[in-house]
């Protein structure tokens, strides 16, 4: 017994000294953190290398965009033969999945990947995005609309290349059913009369803000450069918040209301709050009666509000690279995939609304009905910032409670209590 103890303690001591020695000797080697230094990347010249080396660049884009991206990559390497030592491997991993997959294992993840903006802070916190500086920071800042530039930032650092500004929502409807798309009450009445469904995903934090921002509530977080949330400005627990919540409750009471935001999963559809990515599906569903409009107004306690909501963006991110050659090729490729020509071509091929100012000015973009509706709605929306992951979960909970009729018989005071708790919870995520 005693001997065992002795042996054990001896082993322990040995292990600890060993640990100390080795830990001390290497602790200051790589730990530069996020220091910005060195003039080479801060310069606004496009950084170049004599020899980029070779390798494989993994790219994740949505299934529909795989072919398009492949074609663009081929063009890129044709135009830049000095980087042609690299091959691309494109995988269909949509904007919805990409972030989750990257976070599971950054090292096995893609080198360049598309993602929806709500994942930005999470990705930065997990170290899955490399900050853009110098030339590339400039490129993002000067060529995209202001909302998109803001969306690519965490703190003051630019972390991604915007590729679309169309991640907002508006109304698709069936002209033969919905006569006047300007008020929610009118739409609901038309749908109920026709026995058809009105879809809005009120249990999603993304669509829910259409109510809360409409009445004037605020939901803002500030982050530092590492993606950590440092402060918040949330005013859900207010008269305005109660009005928004009541509007949701009223909507959920309608027999025509369905919770959802995907045309292909909707049945008996008359109107849906949805984004540009569903434009072709909506066209197919409505046929000749296809129409789009900005979101309607809604009335609570005699007061009328215009639906607001998020204006969101899709971004292209580059993973932190361990080799400079590959890093520069990735950056140049990501730039190419998000520049004016590619965005315009992407719009023509896939109807993704561009974030690039030049591309936005194109006639074809301007005349697209879905994008026109979105542009109209844009006047009422708030550019999407960074939100902690828990917000999306809690918003779903709030929406589920509304749909489950939990608040149906509550007084304003009781609703206020619900929102106070909600607000306190959301505030607790920013330290």
């Amino acid at each position: 017994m005693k001997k065992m103890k002795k042996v054990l303690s001896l082993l322990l001591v040995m292990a600890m000294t060993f640990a100390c020695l080795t830990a001390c000797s290497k602790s200051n080697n790589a730990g530069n953190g996020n220091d910005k230094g060195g003039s080479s990347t801060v310069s606004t010249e496009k950084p170049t290398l004599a020899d980029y080396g070779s390798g494989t660049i993994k790219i994740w884009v949505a299934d529909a965009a795989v072919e398009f991206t492949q074609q663009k990559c081929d063009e890129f390497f044709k135009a830049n033969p000095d980087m042609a030592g690299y091959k691309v491997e494109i995988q269909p991993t949509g904007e919805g999945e990409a972030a989750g997959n990257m976070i599971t294992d950054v090292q096995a993840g893609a080198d360049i990947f598309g993602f929806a903006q709500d994942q930005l802070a999470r990705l930065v916190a997990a170290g899955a995005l490399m900050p853009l500086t110098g030339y590339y920071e400039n490129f993002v800042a000067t060529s995209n609309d202001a909302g998109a530039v803001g969306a690519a930032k965490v703190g003051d650092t630019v972390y991604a290349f915007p590729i679309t500004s169309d991640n907002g929502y508006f109304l698709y409807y069936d002209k033969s059913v919905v006569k006047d798309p300007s008020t929610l009450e009118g739409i609901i009445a038309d749908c109920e009369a026709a026995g058809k469904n009105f879809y809005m995903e009120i249990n999603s934090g993304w669509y829910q803000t259409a109510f809360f921002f409409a009445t004037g509530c605020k939901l803002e977080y500030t982050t530092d450069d590492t993606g950590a949330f440092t402060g918040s400005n949330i005013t859900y627990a207010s008269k305005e918040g109660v009005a928004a919540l009541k509007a949701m409750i009223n909507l959920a009471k309608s027999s025509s209301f369905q919770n959802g935001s995907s045309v292909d999963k909707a049945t008996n559809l008359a109107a849906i709050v949805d984004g540009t990515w569903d434009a072709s599906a909506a066209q197919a569903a409505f046929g000749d009666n296809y129409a789009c409009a900005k979101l309607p107004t809604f009335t609570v306690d005699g007061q009328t509000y215009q639906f607001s909501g998020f204006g969101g963006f899709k971004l292209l991110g580059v993973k932190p690279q361990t080799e400079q050659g590959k890093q520069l090729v990735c950056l140049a490729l990501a730039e190419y995939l998000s520049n004016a020509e590619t965005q315009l071509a992407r719009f023509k091929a896939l109807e993704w609304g561009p974030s690039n100012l030049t591309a936005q000015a194109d006639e074809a973009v301007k005349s697209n009905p879905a994008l026109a509706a979105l542009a109209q709605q844009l006047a009422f929306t708030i550019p999407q910032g960074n939100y902690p992951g828990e917000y999306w979960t809690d918003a779903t909970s709030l929406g589920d409670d509304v749909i489950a009729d939990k608040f149906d018989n509550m007084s304003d005071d009781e609703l206020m209590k619900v929102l106070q708790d909600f607000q306190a919870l959301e505030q607790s995520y920013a330290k």
Partner: protein
Amino acid sequence: MAKQHNMRTRKKVGNAVAYTVLILISIIWLFPFVCLVLQSFRSYITEVGGMVDYLVPKKFSLDSYKFLFSGETKFLKWYGNTLIIAVFVAIGQTAFVLCVSYALSRMRFKGREFLMRFWLILGMFPGFLTMICLYFLLKQFGLTQAGAVPGLILISVASSGMGYYVCKGYFDTIPKSLDEAARIDGATRAQVFFGMIIPLSKPIIIYTALTAFMAPWCDYVFASYVAFGNDNGYNVAVAMQRWVWTNDFQGYFTRFCAGGVLVAIPVTVLFLCLQKYYVEGVTGGAVKG
């Protein structure tokens, strides 16, 4: 006489009720499958590929099936992956289970009780807990993403030794005197195992292989965790579940149904053919625990 007559009518009424209940049950049980098949024949080109509020397609069409075989998608590759996984898992798991069962049923060695109890305890931990850890272990061997297929086989087979209960229960029912007679004749344990026990265990081998074969068709949780970011490593469950759950695939519902039918057919046929052994296995397992 009257009483007998009475009984007969009662029996008739009883049977009529029983038949009604059975028919009702059959309808309920088959209804989802009928729906699935019907919807798979709706065209996603000329009709709607997404969800609709009617059941019978307006026009019968094979478009969804054509799509699966067209090469526009890697469905055949995923199907092949799943088949490979299923076959190898069936072989590997059966081999492992037989080995463990024989050792535990026939041999008495130091630590046997402990081993059985220990495995029982290990089995009480939920499997998802360890997913992330298994992922990184597999990654170390290069068996994730592109190598997901062998990786999944490895994981399924490696942990299968713990599922020995049913098989050991079966071995326990084979009289030990048979072994002893053979051993007196000079046969080694190995010879007894391969020459005698295995030929006697056809039902349980089929049962083990069948259940092992069926499981990979349903594995989407761990498989998607291991294969993410590389669609060459997907199995059908992972790929088709993406059609339904992610927003990238608009109007894929009928194609999901069609794929579902194609997955269900071979598994179901195999199952129905080997049903007898399956029943034997589950019944034995239920009684022995």
